[in-house]
């Protein structure tokens, strides 16, 4: 559907971002854009700066220079929960759920991101509280249904299986109502069958109108699901293009397979 529109709007712009930790340059003048409605893959070997890039976008790190803009609004110096409220949500590479809360509550925390309900609304059960609560509940249930773990909604997050936990992370992030959904290695630890299911889920999410940024190691998954790919190596962008272009790009092949014959890992 978005493919037919001639000029796709840039939703997120990473503009010449550099990050230095002391003497180490984790990201070096990286620029790319994520267009509305697409699935962008961000790939690169271990230590290429993918997660750093993620952390800059979500406000965990501050860029040394350059800036990240979401829908034209600079994210520099914003508190992390404000960035989420602006419309950027993420999942975590190492799953970070609220373990002793139920599955439904986890998603509802996400759904609360735009809630204006405060202490007094809750204490006096004002109409706004009830309305917001009902909306959040409906939204959370819908999302659990979408990711396929609705039956487990009353379970504690800690008691879910690994795959279900990853799905819950996606549902929770989606509940914050993001314009851009960032998935940090959502397939880590998955077997091939689970990966296929995940690919289907990501496509389904995109079809719901979300824009997705996918950080991933698994090339098959990335090639299969993304519209475009950005490749990082040693903190620099070395390539950008469609999956087909990336597959044939010599720099990418060198980065992944190594140029040295003995070093084939």
């Amino acid at each position: 559907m978005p493919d037919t529109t001639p000029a796709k709007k840039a939703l997120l712009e990473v503009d010449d971002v550099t990050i230095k930790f002391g003497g180490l340059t984790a990201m070096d003048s990286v620029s790319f854009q994520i267009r509305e409605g697409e699935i962008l893959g961000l790939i690169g070997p271990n230590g290429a700066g993918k997660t750093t890039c993620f952390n800059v976008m979500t406000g965990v790190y501050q860029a040394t220079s350059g800036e990240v803009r979401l829908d034209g609004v600079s994210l520099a110096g914003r508190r992390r929960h404000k960035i989420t409220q602006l419309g950027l949500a993420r999942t975590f590479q190492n799953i970070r759920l609220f373990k002793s809360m139920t599955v439904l509550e986890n998603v509802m925390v996400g759904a609360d991101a735009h809630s204006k309900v405060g202490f007094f609304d809750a204490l006096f059960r004002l109409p706004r509280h009830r309305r917001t609560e009902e909306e959040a509940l409906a939204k959370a249930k819908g999302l659990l249904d979408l990711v396929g773990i609705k039956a487990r909604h009353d379970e504690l997050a800690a008691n879910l299986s690994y795959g279900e936990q990853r799905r819950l992370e996606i549902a929770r992030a989606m509940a914050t109502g993001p314009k851009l959904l960032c998935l940090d290695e959502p397939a880590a630890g998955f077997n091939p069958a689970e990966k296929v299911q995940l690919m289907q889920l990501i496509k389904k999410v995109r079809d719901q109108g979300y824009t997705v940024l996918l950080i991933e190691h698994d090339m098959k998954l990335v090639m299969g699901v993304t519209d475009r790919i950005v490749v990082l190596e040693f903190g620099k962008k070395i390539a950008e293009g469609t999956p087909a272009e990336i597959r044939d790009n010599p720099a990418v092949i060198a980065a992944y397979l190594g140029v040295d014959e003995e070093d084939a890992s």
Partner: protein
Amino acid sequence: MSAMSTTLSGIGRRWDGVVDRYNALPKPARLGLVILFAAFVYLLPLLRPPILTTNNIDFGGVMFSVAAFALVAVGLNIVIGYAGLLDLGYVGFYAVGAYTTGVLTTYHWHWPFFLALPLAIAVTMVTGVILGAPTLRVRGDYLAIVTLGFGEIIRITVKNVEWVGASAGIKDISHPNTIGAAPNPPFDRGGMFDVPRLQWDGIIPSLDRDHPTAVLAFGAVDAIPYYWVILTALILVLVGDRLVKSSRVGRAWEATREDEDAAELMGVPTFKYKLMAFALGAAIGGLSGAFYASGQGGYISPDSFPLLLSMLFVAAVIVGGSGNRWGAIVGGALVAYLPERFREFADYRLLFFGLALSVLAIWRPEGLLPPRRSRRAKAVEAEIEALEEGALEGSTHA
């Protein structure tokens, strides 16, 4: 060893059973039970059930401090149990509430107690915000150390400030106004009407008309009216606690406790909610302190608020089961009640207390009545463990 832990976790299961059966009842039955239970709790110091009643000290007074501790524990449970902030200086807020009341009703002004009470709560809440705003940026152990210091600072400050009575403290703090006429003041206590109490001969109760309690007469003799007032405050706080906990606010607290960074990235303004928990906890501590100040004794001094009291408060929450309001009440009640009931062993009470805490820490670190959800998680864990062990045993048998 396992017998001990089974007994302890049995408490949690039995409690679950009680809650389940209660929830299964139709609404009018539930309402009836709640009223019955509340009536029982209100009348407890008049009923004086044989095993519960303390013989050598005034049972009404004990029940008052039980309720005061329970109130404190409910407040601290918001801070520690819900928001996960270890506050080791909670006695500081208790002291601020008590001193504000003392100063307003007696030492500098002569406000009636029920006018001073809201101000005492407000002052304590503001104190909580002032302390929390800079310190809630540090986490975990650091927060514990900062709050520990705060409790001591309050105590040492009031000890050195003449305006609040310095080390002599504040004496003869006005009691709440008695409701009901007292035509002949020194001999009449006033109050609305008198109620007799029970006395027990073995298991046979009879009415004891020689020690009646005048309802809503606040004097120096009878602690029971104070107990009724603080119990009412406790019930109101509990209702509020329940409403707020089961809302967006409660979820934000729990998410912050579970994983502060993840919560922040899911759009929870964690600092705001931590500060809110801190201020609310402080306000409830101040509320309890205000009752303590104008209670039966009517005397406070810096020595009324030692560091040990902070530790007891934290112990009450942990013993009861951090995160469960009923657990906090049980913990607070036990911590206040047991030393009074077993006065005979008064010399050893800290020893026993330490032993009990150790036993609990080893076999039931989550407390007597932890939130049902953590019990559920624990049960699943145990099940998996049992399955694994079972699988091993099975293979050795085969």
